[in-house]
């Protein structure tokens, strides 16, 4: 089955997310749509799948114009989608999730799940998916949850399968498996639209590549094109994949973590017996696939986790049981994983956001009295120094773009006198320009003698920035390796496979 898009346009307020996009996905091909974060790929696919209405443009399935007013229409037209944020109900079983929307019933509207379970077992077997139809979704690992979504699309006879950033949550090995399955599906006649910003995967799996930049199609390429070519097409200017960085000059131990264990409220252990040091003037990157305990580890250092045992010392001072406020005051800058959720208060002004964790200290406050004039004056200085693009410092932070939001967070955290910078996924979802800015800034912090602890899931970023790499898997740091470790080895470590590497810490 073929899918054709003609002149799809969609804007959100002043932002044009899709600008007259034309695209043809042929029968039985893997068509990669490549573009950096914010280029409009997900918007486009949500339109195709009926989750968003386009402002103009048309969708043709097998050459016939098809009106898609909702996911129901898309499914009926043979379009299936595996979403970046899984569309599964956590408290439902696999079978319940799969029948939802297409329920078969017995008498009196009672659900008939037996046929669905049989189907799930059949498809699961055919693709070697190993999915139990009775399992509750929230108990399943993400890799399996993704398979549930694929099974669902297959059971509903999807002829075109859209995969939206499917590898973001997978280990390199799981990614390879997925790419193999995609080819397998293609060979059986399913067309696949593969959305990604990862060049390696595109080259490996795609039959055709369409590149999108700022909501427009800027070109097509064949998988034989080099990574540099694809990257410059994607970003719009030639870029180097390298980051300028001199050798590290490590000094005294600033952060020392010993035998750290973290549990959640129900008693499950999220981080297991973790120990490591970070020295002044070096960048230690904690690498690993999302969800292996990095978030909790990062939060525990600033005191945001509740059930922690073990010791954390900052420059000799034990901060294991200090409050968040005391930890921040004692000299740690913290860039949380989510700018919107934890880094900023969207409805507060930019100026107020710049003093979130120092609002009660001089010069901003005298005793309990705030000084708005000084807050504003300092804010003007900060936004200039960090090149935040804005109209007014009194505008709400939510009006800023992702990159500028992150700059506000950095401006706040790095302007305090700190010894250690803890940054959790600081470039996630940013455009290339902002990523460069953040990387340069982090290296500058290192070069000024601060210790840096960075958490990243992106292999490229890990290799570009790290002076030492700590690989985390299922709550454990399974190895600490030098930055010249090969990608393959890192990949194996991230999947928990421990070849004979000596710990270099």
């Amino acid at each position, binding site marked *: 089955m073929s899918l054709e898009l003609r002149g799809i346009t969609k804007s959100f307020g002043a932002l044009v997310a899709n600008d007259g996009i034309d695209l043809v996905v042929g029968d039985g091909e893997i068509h990669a749509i490549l573009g950096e974060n914010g280029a409009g790929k997900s918007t486009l696919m949500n339109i195709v799948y009926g989750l968003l209405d386009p402002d103009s443009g048309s969708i043709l399935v097998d050459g016939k114009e098809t009106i898609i007013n909702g996911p129901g229409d898309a499914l009926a037209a043979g379009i299936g989608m595996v979403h970046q944020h899984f569309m599964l109900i956590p408290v439902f079983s696999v079978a319940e999730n799969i029948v939802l929307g297409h329920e078969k019933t017995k008498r009196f509207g009672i659900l008939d799940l037996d046929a669905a379970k049989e189907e799930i077992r059949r498809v699961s077997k055919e693709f070697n998916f190993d999915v139990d139809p009775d399992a509750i979704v929230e108990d399943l690992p993400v890799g399996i949850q993704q398979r549930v979504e694929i099974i669902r699309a297959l059971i509903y006879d999807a002829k075109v399968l859209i995969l939206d950033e499917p590898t973001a949550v997978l280990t390199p090995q799981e990614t390879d498996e997925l790419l193999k399955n995609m080819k397998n599906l293609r060979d059986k006649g399913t067309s696949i639209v593969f959305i990604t910003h990862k060049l390696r995967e595109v080259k490996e799996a795609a039959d055709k590549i369409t590149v999108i930049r700022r909501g427009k199609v800027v070109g097509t390429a064949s998988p034989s094109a080099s990574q540099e070519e694809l990257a410059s097409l994607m970003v719009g200017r030639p870029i180097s994949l390298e980051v300028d960085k001199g050798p590290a000059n490590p000094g005294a131990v600033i952060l020392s973590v010993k035998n750290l264990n973290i549990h959640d409220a129900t008693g499950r252990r999220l981080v297991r017996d973790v120990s490591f040091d970070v020295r002044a003037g070096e960048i230690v990157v904690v690498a690993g696939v999302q969800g292996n305990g990095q978030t909790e580890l990062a939060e525990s250092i*600033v005191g*945001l986790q509740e059930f922690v045992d073990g010791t954390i010392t900052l420059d000799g001072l034990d901060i294991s049981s200090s*409050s*968040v*406020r*005391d*930890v*921040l*005051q004692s000299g740690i800058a*913290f860039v*949380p994983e989510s700018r919107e*959720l*934890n*880094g*900023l*208060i*969207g*409805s*507060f002004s930019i100026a*107020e956001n710049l003093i*979130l*964790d120092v*609002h*009660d200290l001089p010069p901003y*406050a005298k005793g*309990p*009295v*705030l000084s*708005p004039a000084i807050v504003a004056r300092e804010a003007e200085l900060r936004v200039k120094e960090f090149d935040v693009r804005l109209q007014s410092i009194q505008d709400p932070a939510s009006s800023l773009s992702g990159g500028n939001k992150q700059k506000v967070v950095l401006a706040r955290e790095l302007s305090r006198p700190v010894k250690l910078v803890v940054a959790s996924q600081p470039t996630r979802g940013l455009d290339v320009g902002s990523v460069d800015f953040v990387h340069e800034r982090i290296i500058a912090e290192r070069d000024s003698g601060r210790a840096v602890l960075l958490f990243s899931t992106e292999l490229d970023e890990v290799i570009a920035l790290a002076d030492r790499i700590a690989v985390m898997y299922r709550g454990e740091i399974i190895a600490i390796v030098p930055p010249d470790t090969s990608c393959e080895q890192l990949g194996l470590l991230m999947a928990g496979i421990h070849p004979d590497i000596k710990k270099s810490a």
Partner: protein
Amino acid sequence: MAHRGSAVVQKVALPALAFLLALLSGGILIALSDPLVLPLIGSPWKFVKAAFRSAGKAYLALFQGSFFDTNLMTHGSFISGFYPFSETLVIAAPLILAGLSVALAFRAGLFNIGAQGQFIFGAIGASYIGFKFELPPVLHVLFAILGAILLSAIWGGLVGLLKARTGAHEVIVTIMLNYVAAYFLLWLLKTELFLRPGRLDPLAPPINQSAHLPHLLGKDLRVNAGLLIALGAAFFLWWLLNRSTWGFRFRAVGANAAAARTAGISVPFVTTAVMAIAGGLAGLGGAVQTLGTQYALTTDAAGSFGFDAITVALLGRANPIGTVFAAILFGGLRAGGSTMQANTQTPIDIVLVIQALIVLFISAPALVKYIFRLRDIKTGSSVVSKGWNG
């Protein structure tokens, strides 16, 4: 942002239109339920005329009972025509305080439905100190007020503490505590401690003269120092929210608790502190009502102040100054409603209907805009509560 009319118009337009719509709807209800109007439905002209007369008479009485009445003027000067407005302000004073309680909680992301219970405890505290002790005038008032604030702050703070410690949703806890407070009051008034000597009905001893709040404009007008206390509290709250580090923290937690926590602000402390202050404000309302108007604790000590407070805070957009105006408006509806009921046999319950409709229209700006075909109205709202899991 091309047309940005004056800021005041922007802020006032929506509430004013909502008020208008609510009055209109109330008028229709009054007219349609009038036994003299309905039989005329056969002849449209007579029917419309009678309907207008019916609603018009009721609303005229409402105005006369809440603001100015020429009939009262004839007895004395022009000023005495404002006797009804004094009554409006008498009701408004405790309403402002209870409204501020709800407004403060809203700003910190908490929905305080418990102003009623907190008001009751304020009244209990003020009453006890008011009748039990013999103290010099000003000191006695201060002491009684302090006792009221303390008691109600503990009652309110309990909610914050429960939320901070266990995550118990404040909406549920405060709803339940209102009933507990009401039953507690019923029981208390039957105890030796609070039974007026020589009486068997639940009525506490009268407050000593020294603890009465003084009248502001002479003996005849009941408006008393409680109004000044309320206005002072509104100013204090404005300062607290906008110019102090405490208020900064309160607002930060209200706007995004996760980000506030990440920035080192203690969410449990803020939750507890806000609910304690909110309790104190509502309790101060109870004290003003007891020491300034009632002069004795009864089973109906809180009337419906604590519930009206919620509509007041919503109409005032959880803003201290807005809350003052909203409370005066609703105080007027209450005061005028009694006159309306007495003069035109229009039940005072219509006031509840108007109140509810105002808030309903305010909270759905899209609807008001649609009805009036408007575009340029500012509709931002700081009033947001969260679902049960929030």
